[in-house]
């Protein structure tokens, strides 16, 4: 009877997330039951299955509607981006509205649903459909008499669908103690998907669960899903896996001295950064610095604000010297401001996904992260944030998150318990000392870099965040006026040292001058003595010469003995007696 097909052949639904949960889609060539309360999205899921089948997988489909008319259907799903008319015109889709009005019928004797079979068979054959949806087929029970015949005919219908080899979705409304009012699960037993629509904490959440999938493993959890302008998105709770690429590229924090603390270069691109701190410690200012620096580099920044409006953020950042307005005008910075309570987590996550897809930023800022948390939804928030972080990492987007730490709780505590997902974690502290409250910053962790271990005081000045030098006193890091006192003392000490060395240099100079004067005086004295001595020697020589001359003169006058003269003045005598 059933055409032979490979075991576990699956038809992808094309619905984001659902194919992940079911391991590839719905069972091919078999009917699947989709059930749930009114308004939980059954019809839409079924319609998206057909639309995706027609547009992506070349599998035309037949939609048999037992409640809504074709016009209503195409109007309803147009808001989700499905153009049924175009698909119908392209012979990829047939929408057949089965109109049943109990009061118009009279039953007299035996009947069967051969008309429905013929009708469906004709629709399938007319476009070569591979997919079929029977939307709210149970309304037959209200519209036609004789439930016994109907049951038998429905059983025959599902068997007939299997024989046709079409992949079918049958939707049904949840009944008392049964998955569907008419107990359709009795006939459709290959795959059952249960949809749910629950309100918790005033926020409604849609959930999907694969209750049964014969012959296949499947995710057994309840998965939140959302319906928006792009159809259905199921969010598998579990992560996609850790396959993102880690770059060594760095991005500046926008605060030069903070970059220096992060081994000189700032954060890693594509990493997740958490800034946690108590109220008023400057988390948003740090985010502003980061955003402004990124925009100045020409990067795009998407800023999700959950506490302040964009204009409030821009004004407040302006007060600490960060001017974000030009970047917004240039289209490099985009704000997405919503109240956390505006929508359920899933819708938030999906809105964020879409905004990120649309804007293609390099940096995403979420300020603050923990505003989503209300009583009792930590696991969901964590799951959601994990999805967001995974998505950002896969897209190589740097994620910058702030987290408000409640007063009194440990600093390394985040409400969302996402610390393990974070690569770089900065903690902003308020240090109470000496009757003051001062801000300080430390790096709790930063994966993959040699970061500073110091607690640094910083000031929020009108030129932005300024990290101060570190002064460690007896009671820890000195901050505020204690630091100023310490700074003054150090300055004084330095001044006196400088003065002292100046003085000793002057003394030395003086000594040198004195010594040199002494040397000069000695030289002068020596020169005098030398001159005297030389003069004396000269005088003595002159005297001796003169004496000799006088003697020879005398001898000449006296005509002294030549011999004697010869012996004494030989030259003169010889000269005169040629």
């Amino acid at each position, binding site marked *: 009877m059933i055409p032979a097909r490979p075991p576990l052949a699956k038809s992808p639904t094309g619905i984001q997330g659902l194919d992940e949960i079911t391991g590839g889609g719905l069972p091919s060539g078999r009917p699947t039951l989709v059930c749930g309360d009114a308004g939980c999205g059954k019809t839409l899921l079924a319609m998206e299955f057909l639309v995706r089948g027609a547009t992506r997988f070349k599998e035309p489909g037949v939609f048999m509607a037992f409640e809504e008319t074709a016009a209503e259907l195409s109007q309803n799903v147009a808001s989700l981006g499905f153009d049924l008319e175009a698909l119908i015109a392209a012979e990829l889709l047939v929408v057949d509205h089965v109109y*049943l009005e109990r009061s118009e*019928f009279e039953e*007299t004797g035996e*009947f069967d649903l051969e*008309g429905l079979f*013929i*009708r469906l068979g004709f629709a399938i054959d007319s476009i070569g459909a591979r997919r079929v949806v029977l939307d709210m087929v149970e309304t037959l029970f209200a519209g036609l*008499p004789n439930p016994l015949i109907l049951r038998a005919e429905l059983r025959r219908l599902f068997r007939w669908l299997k024989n046709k080899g079409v992949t079918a979705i049958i939707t049904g409304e949840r009944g008392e103690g049964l998955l569907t009012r008419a107990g359709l699960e009795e006939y459709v037993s290959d795959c059952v998907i249960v949809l749910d629509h629950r309100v918790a904490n005033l926020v409604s959440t849609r959930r999907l669960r694969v209750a049964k999938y014969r012959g296949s493993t499947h995710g057994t959890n309840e998965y939140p899903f959302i319906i928006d302008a792009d159809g259905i998105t199921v969010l598998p709770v579990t992560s996609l896996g850790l396959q993102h690429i880690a770059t060594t590229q760095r991005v500046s924090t926008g605060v030069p001295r903070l970059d220096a603390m992060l081994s000189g270069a700032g954060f890693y691109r594509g990493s997740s950064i958490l800034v946690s701190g108590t109220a008023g410690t400057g988390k948003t200012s740090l985010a502003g610095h980061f955003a402004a620096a990124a925009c100045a580099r020409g990067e795009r920044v998407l800023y999700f604000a959950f506490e302040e409006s964009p204009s409030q953020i821009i004004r407040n950042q302006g007060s600490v010297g960060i001017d974000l307005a030009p970047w917004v005008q240039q289209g490099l910075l985009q704000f997405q401001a919503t109240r956390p309570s505006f929508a359920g987590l899933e819708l938030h996550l999906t809105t964020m996904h879409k905004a990120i897809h649309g804007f293609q930023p390099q940096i995403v800022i979420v300020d603050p992260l923990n505003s989503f948390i209300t009583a009792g939804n930590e696991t969901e928030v964590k799951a959601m944030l994990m999805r967001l972080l995974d998505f950002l990492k896969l897209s190589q987007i740097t994620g910058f998150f702030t987290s408000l730490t409640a007063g009194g709780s440990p600093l390394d505590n985040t409400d969302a318990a996402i610390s393990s997902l974070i690569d770089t974690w900065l903690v902003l502290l308020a240090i109470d000392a000496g009757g003051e409250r001062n801000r300080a910053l430390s790096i709790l962790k930063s994966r993959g870099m040699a970061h500073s271990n110091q607690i640094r005081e910083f000031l929020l000045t009108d030129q932005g965040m300024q990290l101060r030098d570190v002064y460690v006193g007896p009671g820890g890091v000195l901050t505020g006026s204690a630091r100023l006192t310490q700074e003054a003392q150090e300055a004084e000490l330095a001044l006196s040292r400088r003065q002292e060395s100046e003085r000793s240099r002057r003394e030395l100079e003086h000594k040198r001058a004195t010594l040199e004067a002494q040397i000069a005086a000695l030289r002068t004295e020596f020169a005098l003595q030398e001159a005297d001595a030389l003069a004396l020697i000269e005088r003595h020589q002159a005297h001796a010469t003169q004496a000799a001359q006088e003697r020879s003169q005398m001898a000449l006058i006296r005509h002294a003995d030549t011999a004697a003269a010869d012996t004494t003045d030989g030259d003169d005598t010889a000269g005169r007696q040629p």
Partner: protein
Amino acid sequence: MTTPADDARTPPDQDSPDTWTLRLYVAGQTPKSITAFDNLKRICEEHLAGRFQIEVIDLLEQPQLARGDQILAIPTLVRRLPEPVRKIIGDLSNTERVLIGLDLLPRAH
């Protein structure tokens, strides 16, 4: 394929406002459809003698009509004229209910 309809077309004056236009939808010559046709013909001849027209539609031959006429159950008898449209499903074995369905007997019986 010949259906019982071929020899049932005995419209005396088709345009008369009094003429009933009845359509019987069947799927092949099944025992149910033959029974239904026989029952219909008998009832019409008894109660609408000379002013009825029966058209038998075999959906196996004209499957596209099932959608246009909103046919699910087989056999289905549709009273197209006089208006409003009435539908009776089944093999028409309960004459009284057929008459009620065709407004030939008051409902609050």
